[in-house]
């Protein structure tokens, strides 16, 4: 059993370790065959070169601004709609909700050409707004939060109604705090998928200083030459923020991801 666990960890970790080790090597060391495991010296030159050549500060800022906006706006939009679909009666509700669910199943590529044209028309290409704007209307988020609102006892609304709260008040003050775990999970899932996305950032923002980490990494494979120690240094720089967040909030990450599997 332990052997299997050790093997598993080795397979998982080895690529990361090799990335780190390579990032400290000189070009000559990296192309030596058979390779030495450890670098001759732990020098940071590759990190310095990569940080000089590529605007990593902008990559970080663009990535986190995009993640922040996607999460914040999506939570507001989806929780309001989720509440309305769960608790309020209005004509056409079933139809509208089914329509929303149907969109869940459509693959994203079919929207990309029009999304891109919308961004061009709004003169939003090469902006942070373009990165998050099409991502905030989540059918999945609405569906998930609706499930949670439905799980809350109806008596909460009635009591609040008697106290004179309006529907919006009930949503904002009474129910929203009660679905906080679901909101956190959705926030994590949304942030994670925004962080990982490559195609859309690549399409909509081409200026180097408007790229996300994901798209910026694609630029590391140089037109002229590929110095792998530098590529690995760049990858390491792109990878650590999310790993750190994960280690800090592991419980929430795991719960969030697990939640997607429960129907």
């Amino acid at each position, binding site marked *: 059993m332990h052997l299997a666990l050790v093997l598993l960890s080795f397979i998982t970790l080895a690529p990361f370790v090799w990335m780190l080790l390579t990032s400290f090597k000189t070009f000559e060391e990296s192309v030596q065959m058979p390779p030495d495991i450890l670098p001759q010296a732990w020098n940071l030159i590759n990190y310095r070169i990569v940080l000089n050549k590529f605007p990593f500060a902008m990559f970080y800022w663009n990535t986190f601004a995009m993640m922040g906006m996607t999460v914040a706006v999506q939570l507001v939009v989806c929780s*309001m709609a989720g509440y309305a679909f769960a608790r309020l009666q209005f004509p056409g509700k079933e139809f509208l909700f089914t329509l929303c669910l149907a969109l869940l*199943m459509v693959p994203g590529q079919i929207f990309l050409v029009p999304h891109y044209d919308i961004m061009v028309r709004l003169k939003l290409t090469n902006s942070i707004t373009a990165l998050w704007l099409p991502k905030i*209307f989540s059918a999945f988020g609405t569906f998930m939060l609706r499930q949670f609102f439905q799980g809350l006892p109806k008596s909460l609304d009635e009591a609040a109604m008697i106290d004179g709260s309006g529907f919006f008040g009930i949503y904002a003050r009474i129910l929203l705090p009660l679905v906080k775990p679901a909101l956190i999970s959705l926030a994590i899932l949304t942030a994670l998928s925004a962080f990982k996305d490559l195609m859309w950032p690549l399409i909509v923002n081409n200026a180097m200083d408007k790229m996300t980490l994901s798209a910026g990494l694609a630029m590391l494979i140089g037109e002229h030459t590929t110095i792998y120690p530098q590529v690995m240094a760049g990858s390491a720089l792109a990878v650590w923020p999310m790993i750190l967040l994960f280690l800090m909030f592991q419980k929430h990450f795991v719960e969030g991801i697990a939640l997607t*599997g429960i129907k």
Partner: protein
Amino acid sequence: MKSRARNQLRRGEILAGYSMIAPLYIGLIVFYLFAFGQNIYDSLTNKSSFGVPDFVGLANYIKMFKAPYFYQALQNTLMYVVICVPLVVVFSVLVAVLLNVGVRGTGAYRTLSFLPAVTLPAAIALMWKWLLNYEFGLINALLNAFGISSIAWLSDPQVVLFAVSMVFVWSSVSYQVIVLLAGLQGISSNYYEAARIDGAGRVQQFFSITLPLLSPSIFFVMVTSIINVFQIFDIIYLIIPQYSSGTAASRSLATFFFEEAFIKFQKGYGAAIAVALFVVIMVVTLAQMWFQKKWVHYDE
């Protein structure tokens, strides 16, 4: 008097309902419904970078059905599904079961094995591109040490699809393990105790209890894997070298779409490829829904 108040309340509720779904629906209409229709329309035009697009009828579709690269991309995509999905499902079940056994230090092992789930696919592709490099890659160095000659993982048309699949499986198992672990923890230990009393061994328990009771989660893993693999792009885009002889043999439908629509900037043609991808995924999704009723065991 009372009914009037109720009417007013009712009207308020309707108004509140509509206004609270309004932000979502404005977005869905603009970014999804309108965009969907627009994409269909674009696919019937010769839209490219500049100039006003002309309506060209089905020309893009005819071009697509005549293009050998389309069929190859379709075939590659199906191959990715056939290779990756079973591997992801099997490995994630095995790893989840392994991590569910309470040995000392399981917590640490879990944390480690979750790492790929929170790593950028772009970085994963670059990491593996280096490991799989023909001349200087660690994997070929290891093969050489055992007297096996180097393999051009990313450029040999015979191999590249398997290399990409391997990286894909490595990168996606860990996310699915998290889902399955939650499923495993939902299985009551009573079942296992009863089985133990009946004298069932570990392997037998796995097949007679774990698998059936985990089937909803496994089904979920399968469905999401299928959808993810059908849209496989990031890894291929970054791991295959420029001008590689492995390009055609590894190209997926999503990569094909991206190249045509956003590198060659033939947006009309790209839109047609997106429609094809949509149809393929739709057919598979419907087939799954039908198939689901056959084997998934829902605990009522």
